């Protein structure tokens, strides 16, 4: 099993969700986060003085899938979240050791 974690532009969330649903992923967790990468931040202006916004708002999604599906999940996220502009985000893939569905006690692949 793999855990695919991606940080994407907030307005791309719906497109990413649709892309994942279409390849058979039926669950994800989304979190509002802030951070910076190559995009750094941007400046805003208030009463004539500029100031830096060093942490930009992003959405972090986490998807747990069977190992064989992981590659297609990465492809789906990268094509759906891509704008070609700086700040599109990153995708991280982790090995996943154990999963338990709390309601039934099922574990691992059965719990996905």
């Amino acid at each position: 099993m793999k855990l695919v974690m991606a940080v994407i532009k907030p307005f791309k969330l719906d497109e990413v969700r649709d892309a994942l649903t279409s390849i058979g992923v039926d669950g994800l967790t989304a979190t509002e986060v802030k951070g910076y990468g190559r995009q750094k931040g941007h400046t805003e202006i208030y009463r004539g003085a500029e100031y830096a916004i060093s942490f930009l708002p992003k959405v972090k999604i986490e998807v747990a899938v069977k190992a064989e599906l992981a590659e297609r999940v990465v492809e789906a996220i990268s094509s759906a979240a891509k704008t070609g502009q700086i700040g599109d985000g990153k995708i991280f893939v982790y090995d996943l050791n154990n999963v338990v569905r709390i309601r039934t006690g099922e574990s691992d692949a059965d719990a996905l």
Partner: protein
Amino acid sequence: MRKSTILKTTMAALAVFGLVGAAPALAAVDSETAYILNTFSFLVNGALVMWMAAGFAMLESGLVRSKNTATICLKNIALYSIAGLTFYLVGYNLMYLDVTGYIGSLSPFWGPDDAEALSGTFAEGGYSASSDWFFQMVFVATAASIVSGALAERVKLWSFLAFVVLLTAIIYPIQGSWVWGGGWLAEMGFSDYAGSTLVHSVGGWAALSGAIILGARKGKYSAEGRVIPIPGANLPLATLGTFVLWLGWFGFNGGSVLALGSAASAIEMANVFANTNMAAAGGVIAAMILTQILYKKVDLTMTLNGAIAGLVSITAEPADPTLGMAVLIGAVGGVIVVLAIPLLDKLKIDDVVGAIPAHLFAGIWGTLAVVISDAEASFITQLTGIVAIGIFALVLSTVFWFILKFTIGIRVDEEDEVIGLDKAELGLEAYPEFGRGSQTL
């Protein structure tokens, strides 16, 4: 006493523009009807001015951080109430009763005397005593409101309110007696229709002195002197506050005709309303264009300051200018605030809401601009009034601020400033359902 000259000049101005004939044949209403209409004008316009306190409260709430919102709300309703109490205790009598040239009567507790009117005798231009007291009282509150915005987010609640007592009981009424009480500046011919200098600049001088003595908010200026902006929490609220002030200003300037008992005074009041509106519009447009040019973006909060500056600029003479001239007078006010805000920042004078540029600097401009449309006003006399009242207000404010600083202290300690005055001084949050977590990372 200033009313007769205002009417005369207005009629002359109207004649120039062909709006009335050379000899207006106006059928006068009887003296009791005029008395009722004059009283009505004071009451309705006074209620509009009272509503400016709400405008200040919202403008200031919008421009502070949400950790100081409840405190600024409390200060605004408290200062409005204090202004009424002090004006009753000493203010009105100091300003209007038996003015000797430099000060009125020290007798405490004002009370109405309407015996003459109740016996059926109505002086020309008469009105009920309480209507006049009420109308003058709401003006004092306006001067005090100006101070609260400039010193927001770091001044101690009770020290600020103690200063408000001194401002409204001593500084405001004494200098007011020099002009509206018929004192030495009025005799000299100094003209300030609704108080660009008497109300707005006086509040501005007190704010300037307080802001310097109090020092900037923690984190406003970096060690190298760079400005670190501290954005306001709620710009819709700041915008609403500005609109409320704009509405209230029709009462502020319109009521200052001091009469509604004749067609001539009704015409004058209508002209004042129109000019007041156009000056504010001029201030807005000028601030928008200038911030677009200077910063490549329109600055909303400076545009709001532009509206206030336009209003303050026209307040010294809202009756005589043409509409076009009113737009220009207000526009200069809008330019003044946009240029003065960064200038104050260079001097490290931290004025949270832009009260000093909008009320003090635009007030000085408006008082000088009287000479443009009022042929009887003299530039030297206007300047004398500005300087005399400026020195009086600045020196007394500075003395009072230092007395407070070295007795009860005027600034909250650093830790309280960081957690916010709402928690430190009031023990509550203005928006308890939106925790601090949503504001910081």
